[in-house]
């Protein structure tokens, strides 16, 4: 039987295929170069059957005149074409696509490595660079090598303070940063059904940190219900036993709070082993952990307390920000002494809005801790929302179970 990637791409692993792209999106970072390549290709009109989107999230709002000018041109292009354009403050591209734009079985390509996030909906979602995106604007198609798949079998339920991010770090540590290069991850097993869409999105999001081309879940009742809430009718996908190149069994009950230490995502230790590491900043947000459930959980943990270190909270989208206002989550976060940023990527890629100084240490809920990524000489530890909350209150890396 076929893997989900093989079913969606309609060919066996190892084959090369040309496929229509159902949805294609780019952001203010990759979109600028894609526009240059599009012009050089002689691009005049967009592929007819593809949904096209441009979101401004990476340096949003613009940090200086050069960025503003580059964004101005891309904004004009997006508005003058039939693309759906989301300006600064709307949110992170992957989150916006995930707020009801992606259906199970679709082929989705984003000009960003974390486009794999959308595999959580049972779509084949992968990242490309700018020139590939320009060609998709031109033709509505691209080529794929149908990937072999790694089966990640999940059983059980989380216990204690462990959450989806800890599970994600656990599988990246297990596979290594290139453990799934050229391959897709498929998250299967009884443990999947207990996971919310937000939790699944975290697991799909990190799949590229193991080198994977995609990270897929079969759409089930949870998926269908989520999409219904976002105005979409969708059908679930039946899991068929299939052969995986590699299999990994993880029991959610065994997962403990983890952090990835500088400067590799696959170098992971229990939070307990790093307890007491002094921090200069805590950052909660990004396409990994900036969703409403993340912010609500963070607020619950810091409510009535004061953070002991500068703490930046950035909702992944405007819809999330508005919901935190309606429900009082935002007030709890602000009362605890945290500060809020414009919905978007924030300082994750090291441009603005909370970058680190030399020698500074940050506990971040993001997905990359590469050397100098958030600022030259800064060190990044990656952890869960609960770990971020406990650490913010104590001003040092603190296990979320430590009270």
């Amino acid at each position, binding site marked *: 039987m076929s893997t989900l990637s093989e079913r969606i791409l309609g060919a066996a692993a190892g084959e*090369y295929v040309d496929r229509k792209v159902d949805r294609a999106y780019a952001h203010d*970072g990759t979109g600028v170069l894609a526009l240059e390549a599009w012009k050089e290709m002689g691009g005049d009109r967009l592929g007819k059957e593809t949904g096209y989107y441009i979101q401004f999230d990476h340096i949003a709002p613009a940090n200086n005149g050069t960025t503003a000018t580059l964004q101005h041109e891309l904004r004009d292009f997006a508005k003058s074409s039939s693309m759906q354009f989301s300006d600064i403050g709307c949110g992170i591209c992957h989150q916006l696509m995930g707020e009801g734009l992606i259906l199970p079985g679709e082929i989705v390509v984003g000009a960003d490595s974390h486009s794999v996030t959308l595999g959580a909906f049972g779509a084949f979602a992968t990242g490309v660079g700018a020139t590939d995106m320009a060609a998709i604007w031109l033709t509505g198609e691209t080529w794929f090598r149908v990937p072999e798949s790694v089966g990640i079998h999940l059983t059980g339920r989380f216990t204690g303070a462990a959450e989806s991010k800890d599970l994600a770090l656990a599988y990246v540590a297990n596979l290594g940063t290139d453990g799934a*290069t050229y391959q897709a991850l498929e998250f299967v097993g009884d443990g999947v059904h207990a996971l919310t869409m937000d939790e699944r999105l975290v697991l799909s999001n990190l799949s590229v940190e193991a080198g994977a081309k995609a990270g897929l879940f079969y759409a089930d009742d949870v998926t269908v219900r989520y999409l219904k809430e976002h105005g979409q009718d969708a059908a679930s996908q039946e899991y068929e036993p299939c052969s995986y190149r590699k299999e990994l069994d993880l029991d959610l009950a065994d997962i403990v709070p983890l952090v990835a230490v500088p400067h590799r995502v696959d170098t992971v230790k229990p939070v307990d082993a790093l307890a007491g590491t002094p921090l200069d900043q805590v950052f909660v947000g990004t396409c990994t952990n900036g969703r409403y459930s993340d912010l609500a959980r963070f607020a619950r943990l810091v409510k009535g307390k004061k953070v002991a270190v500068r703490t930046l909270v950035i909702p992944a989208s405007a819809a999330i920000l508005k919901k935190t206002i309606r429900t009082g989550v935002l007030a709890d976060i602000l009362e605890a002494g945290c500060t809020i940023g414009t919905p978007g990527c924030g300082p994750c890629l090291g441009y603005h809005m909370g970058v680190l100084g030399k020698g500074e240490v940050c506990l971040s809920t993001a997905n*990359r801790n590469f050397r100098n990524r958030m600022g030259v000489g800064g060190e990044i530890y990656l952890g869960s929302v609960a770990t971020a909350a406990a650490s913010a209150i104590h001003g040092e890396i603190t296990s979320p179970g430590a009270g």
Partner: protein
Amino acid sequence: MQGRGTAVCLPADVDTDLVIAGRYLRTRDRSVWATHAFEDLDPTLAPRLMGAVIIAGKNFGCGSSREQAVLALREAGVVAVIAPSFARIFFRNAINIGLPLIESDLTCEEGSPVAFDLSEGWVDAGGKRHMIRPLSPRMQEILMAGGLVEYWRAHR
């Protein structure tokens, strides 16, 4: 496609933040990327990239999809990159701008001559000939065209 150059040795798992740091991405001046290539890995490296064949460890180009990483190498004068494996977006990006990548596990001798012929499928390095796996037919077409822009100019 043939090429030759001088070996520059790099470690495994070089991510695209190390190839070109995020702080240099937003510019119209492409020479900025060449000037600052690998700055956070080895600040002395950029001037040595003209005519270089980079021989790296596994998983070269992991991380971000930024095309500035492959453009930085091309602008700096890198002839080709050889590694046992590449991150897949970096792989596509390189071929799309006409920068040859070769999947091969070679021992690197800094400064030694390297030659390759992608059509015939070999690399000469360290005084030995190594046979290499060819690119997919589509990737070969794109590379031969000089990149994806040129490929689509010719195919529309």
